[in-house]
């Protein structure tokens, strides 16, 4: 519930009238702007710094990025300085060619396919494990806070450090995982060097990184469900599964919809795990959209800025469509979000 900048309590009391009053303003009273300014200038002044920052360092680059995606800009034709010589930009506007190329070629669609597999499997496994562990930790069990502390640990370590730790474990010749397999008489697994194993390995690391957040968030949700509900259900003879199905899951809805949305977006854009573990390899087997877009502009020669921007814009559009659809589905199911 938000209220007007001035005369807060009055405005709150007069809520329904005020809405009508404002609509009358739009009929074109000359003092409209001045009135709005005198009412809202405090709020506007307070948000100004953020609006400026967003406009300058997000808005402007975004517009430029969209523009670049409509050109054939690359390393050789953008504005640049070589020594004392300043070379002007010579790239040209090519319209939607880049988008047509991306959407009709196989590379974008193949990468998108794996990105979707990656996102769905990471989120599903992370959610499942997080939910299971949260449920166990929500019981009365000896050493609960100790287990909780241990399970949170992966979240506490900076992501890039964890990823390097995993690279260390995955090392094909000398990594601990293969040494353990060798101890059991099994052949070494090319964790990061075989396309299928690499896919499995990157998903495993991302799940390992993601479970703690999921678990803690769901644990918070579980603890907000009143215990009486369970007691009443138990009195009525509901078994454990029925209690989980009819009390726990509905009680967790608002938390779980939020964390699923967040972790879907995070996983879809998860740059460091792929970049630091496999660089998208072997071949392009583990390349997701974000790392491939990065590769276009920073790892190949000549750097293809236009292609990279095109992929960037497409990723953003995909995510926004996803978020909008997700929200609409929730709203249809009566979730006020």
């Amino acid at each position, binding site marked *: 519930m938000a209220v007007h900048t001035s005369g807060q309590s009055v405005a709150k009391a007069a809520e329904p009238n005020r809405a009508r009053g404002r609509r009358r303003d739009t009929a074109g009273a000359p003092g409209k702007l001045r009135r709005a300014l005198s009412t809202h200038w405090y709020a506007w002044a307070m948000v100004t710094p*953020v609006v400026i920052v967003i406009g300058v360092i997000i808005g402007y680059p975004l517009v430029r990025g969209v523009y670049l995606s409509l050109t054939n800009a690359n390393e050789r034709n953008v504005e640049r300085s070589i020594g004392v010589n300043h070379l002007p930009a010579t790239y040209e506007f090519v319209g939607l060619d880049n988008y047509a190329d991306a959407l009709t070629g196989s590379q974008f669609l193949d990468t998108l396919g794996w990105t979707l597999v990656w996102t769905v499997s990471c989120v599903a496994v992370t959610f499942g494990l997080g939910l299971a562990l949260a449920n166990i930790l929500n019981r009365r069990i000896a050493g609960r806070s100790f287990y909780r502390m241990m399970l949170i640990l992966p979240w506490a370590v900076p992501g*890039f450090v964890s990823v390097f730790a*995993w690279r260390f474990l995955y090392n094909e010749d000398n990594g601990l995982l293969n040494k353990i397999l060798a101890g059991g008489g099994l052949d070494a697994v090319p964790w990061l060097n075989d396309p299928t194993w690499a896919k499995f390995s990157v998903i495993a690391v991302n799940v390992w990184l993601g479970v703690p957040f999921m678990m803690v968030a769901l644990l918070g949700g579980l603890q907000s469900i009143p215990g009486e509900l369970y007691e009443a259900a138990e009195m009525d003879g509901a078994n454990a599964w029925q209690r989980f199905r009819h009390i726990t899951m509905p009680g967790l809805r608002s938390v779980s919809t939020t964390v699923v949305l967040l972790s879907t977006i995070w996983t879809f854009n998860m740059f460091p795990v792929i970049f630091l573990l496999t660089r998208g390899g072997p071949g392009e087997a583990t390349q997701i959209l974000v790392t491939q877009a990065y590769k276009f502009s920073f790892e190949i020669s000549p750097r293809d800025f236009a292609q990279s921007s095109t992929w960037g814009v497409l990723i953003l559009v995909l995510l926004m469509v996803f978020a909008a659809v997700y929200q609409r589905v929730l709203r249809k199911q009566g979730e006020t979000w």
Partner: protein
Amino acid sequence: MVTSTHVPANAPVRGRRSPLASALLHLTLFVASVIAVFPVLWVLLTSLKPAEYAITTDFVKETTFENYTKLLDDTEFLTWFGNSLLVAGLTTVLGVFVAATTGYAVSRFRFPGKRGLMWTLLITQMFPVAVLIVPIYNIMAGLGLLNEPAGLVITYLTIAVPFCAWMMKGFFDTIPREIDESGQVDGLTPFGTFWRLILPLAKPGIAVTAFYSFITAWGEVAYASAFMVGDENLTLAGGLQKFVNQYGAQWGPMTAASVLIAIPAAVVFLFAQRHLVTGVSAGAVKG
């Protein structure tokens, strides 16, 4: 429905379970904890082994700090550490400073443009690095800010500012509105109310927000890898890559560096983590 207090003798009492179920629960938690802790622990153990044993599975045969002394003496680790501190610190301070009033305004006032601003804050959270990295790279190149900490700070503000504003709104929402009203009664302006009454109350929330944006900047990889080159300009995320590249790996210094980066972060994190979830879920759920 029977309302008597009689309970059958064999009815399961809440909170009590069979020994087998207990054992299974403990086993699950134990296995999960080992999986969670082991990779980190293994890196710690390896860092304490002499370099020539780094890739063996022997547990600590002889403990040595040689990896650490080598790391500090022979590599640019301290420079990278300093760079990371500088960049993440500046990003945090600027981000929190710029975003604080906005978080308050969005939490308390209704004003034209609020909905649009909220949506912008939300949507910028899902900006993939791929959308902005090329244009920002070109702009920074034009301004001569590539390879400069200042350039990286400006870039990180694109992540930190919307995030801080969003998260602080969540914390301001938890402060009772009556406090604002009492400020108003005492003749404080909205800004005075914010500055004198709300900000002191929101300190824990602001600390958590600051900590979170510090951690985000501290662990950022994509921009740091693309914008910073040359040994003396790297941040930790870039520096660590030096030890593990496609030509081979220096696991000794890598593990020592990992420990030095992770331990302070983990200690602070474990103290702050309860509030972190509150912030995320308060910001996200009540949106």
